């Protein structure tokens, strides 16, 4: 994409945002999403936009239905956590096993897609700006039900997304992953990397019904927390359950040869403020189902909510949609209690780090 094309796209997105914002008052309930109105009302109910972390993170006023939304995902994505169910049990679909990837040219593309998925920085260096890999948030190479598996996502697109306020194709959804979650650069349409990832997802979805309600899709949403989410409790949960692998500073840990084995959760090597995992409800759902690794379901819902708030109350790379003002960017893209962007935590406004840094490919050591 040339700078001019990018500018045109940005302007178009901005215009769409404004138009859709006006149109959206009350209208998007149709989509089953947390409506713009609800979010707007929630924000108006707050006395001040810059309150302390624990206070501002309150979701107790929000309706349970709204809390089940999976922000940034298509409609019909609300997956209600079955009572007492462990992660993924509800899934009826199971993707083909890796050994069934066909031999031949198409199989090679699928395998290439898998490689990009599990080793993103090394396999797609031109588009990755941090130390994360797709597999960090989509466990078992995108196969695991309840961990936003690729097979369920594939059959859900094209779909309307509140994030872009437009209908996105699967490739466009993947572009968003690179731009936000990988703090990188969107590969151009039909770039070999996108084609490979799409092929891998297509193959994983072999035999899946084209049904956006496929069980196992997204992350199993948590019920609204019993207590107001709290930073200090989250900090304690983090120290006891997360810091051993992800580090007290959230920077993760690398192998001696430099591979980020435990992904950075915040800071310059993590996803940027525009990523879906930066939403407290998304991260809480992921954490509850999957963390600590191999011990999913062991944290209480409240612990998952608290530690998600804690994780997402730290600084990370700037939102690529940054408008020049943190509060303006917040009101345009983060006008929800699920985002701490623009909020004051310990005397510092999150996101007040200036314009996004120019894209720099992450340094992944050669094998």
């Amino acid at each position, binding site marked *: 994409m040339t700078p001019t094309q990018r500018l045109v796209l940005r302007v178009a997105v901005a215009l769409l945002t404004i138009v859709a914002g006006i149109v959206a008052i009350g209208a998007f309930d149709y989509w089953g999403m947390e409506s713009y109105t609800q979010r707007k009302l929630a924000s108006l109910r707050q006395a001040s936009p810059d309150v302390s972390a624990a206070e501002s993170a309150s979701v107790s006023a929000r309706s349970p239905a709204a809390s089940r939304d999976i922000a940034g995902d298509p409609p019909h994505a609300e997956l209600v956590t079955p009572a007492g169910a*462990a*992660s*993924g049990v509800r899934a009826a679909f199971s993707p083909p096993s*890796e*050994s*069934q*990837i*066909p*031999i031949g040219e198409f*199989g*090679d593309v699928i*395998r290439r897609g*898998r*490689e990009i998925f*599990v*080793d993103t920085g090394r*396999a797609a260096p031109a588009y990755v700006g941090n130390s994360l890999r797709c597999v960090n948030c989509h*466990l*078992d*190479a995108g*196969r*695991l039900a309840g961990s936003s598996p690729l097979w369920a996502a594939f059959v859900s697109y094209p779909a309307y997304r509140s994030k872009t306020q437009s209908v996105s194709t699967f490739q466009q959804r993947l572009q968003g992953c690179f731009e936000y979650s990988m703090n990188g650069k969107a590969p151009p349409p039909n770039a070999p990397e996108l084609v490979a990832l799409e092929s891998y997802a297509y193959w994983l979805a072999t035999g899946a019904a084209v049904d956006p309600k496929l069980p196992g899709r997204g992350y199993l949403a948590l019920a609204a927390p019993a207590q107001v989410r709290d930073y200090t409790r989250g900090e304690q949960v983090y120290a006891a*359950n997360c810091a*051993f*692998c992800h580090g007290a500073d959230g920077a993760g*840990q*690398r*192998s*001696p*040869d430099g*591979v980020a*084995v*435990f992904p950075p959760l915040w800071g310059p090597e993590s996803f940027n403020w525009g990523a879906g995992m930066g939403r407290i409800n998304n991260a809480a759902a992921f954490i509850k189902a999957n963390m*600590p*690794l*191999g*011990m*999913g379901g062991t944290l209480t819902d409240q612990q998952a909510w608290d530690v998600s708030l804690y994780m997402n109350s730290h600084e990370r790379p700037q939102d690529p949609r940054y408008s020049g003002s943190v509060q303006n960017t917040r009101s345009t893209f983060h006008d929800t209690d699920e985002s701490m962007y623009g909020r004051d935590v310990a005397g510092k406004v999150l996101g007040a780090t200036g314009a996004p840094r120019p894209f720099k490919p992450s340094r992944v050591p050669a*094998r």
Partner: protein
Amino acid sequence: MTLSRNLSWVMFGIVLSTNVHADGATIAQQGAGSVVACQSCHGVAGEGVAAAGFPRLAGMGASYLQRQLEAFAQGTRSNAVMMPIAKALSAADRKAVASHYASMPFGGAAAMQSSTSAPRGAAEPKVSVAPAAASASAPTVGMTLATRGRWSDTLPACEQCHGPGGRGVGADFPPLVGQSAAYLAAQLTAFKSKARPAGPMNLMGVVAQKLSDADVQEVAAYYAALPAGGAR
């Protein structure tokens, strides 16, 4: 006056630095009191003795090694040879000898039978991206557990914590490569039977409970067969 003062500082510095190094190294090489030298069982380069099931110590993380010595001293990790040794050492000695072995090069001079003399990096398998179906032979159970895990049973891959190629991560996640199959299998079995404490957050306890006896043998054999050269 000035000269002698300077000289005394230099001497002081030498004493200090030799002290710091001597403690761990001396215990390792000569023992301390009733404690035999570590190297008499673990090898001059801390490489271990595969045939006897004595583990490699060189290049393991410092806090991992120290935690093991503490567990032997307290009797929570049971081993007839190591328990009296760890108990006889002071807490400071245990810390010093742990740091000593942590600072030794992983690919120590005396390579184990499993660590071939492959040049650094040359023989490292592309573990996390190994094309399963492309290779003529199907991946073994051990390789699958090591690099893929078994998520139908929410069992993560070994390398998700122990790093690519099982080469270890940080001070707490020890390398698996470079250990003998006998030692690895014995430890996994001990985790399973709770004869060995599961360690921080019960991570290994949870994992080991999901492994069958056959799984244990397979995964131990997989890591023992990986070349250790180039690790760390």
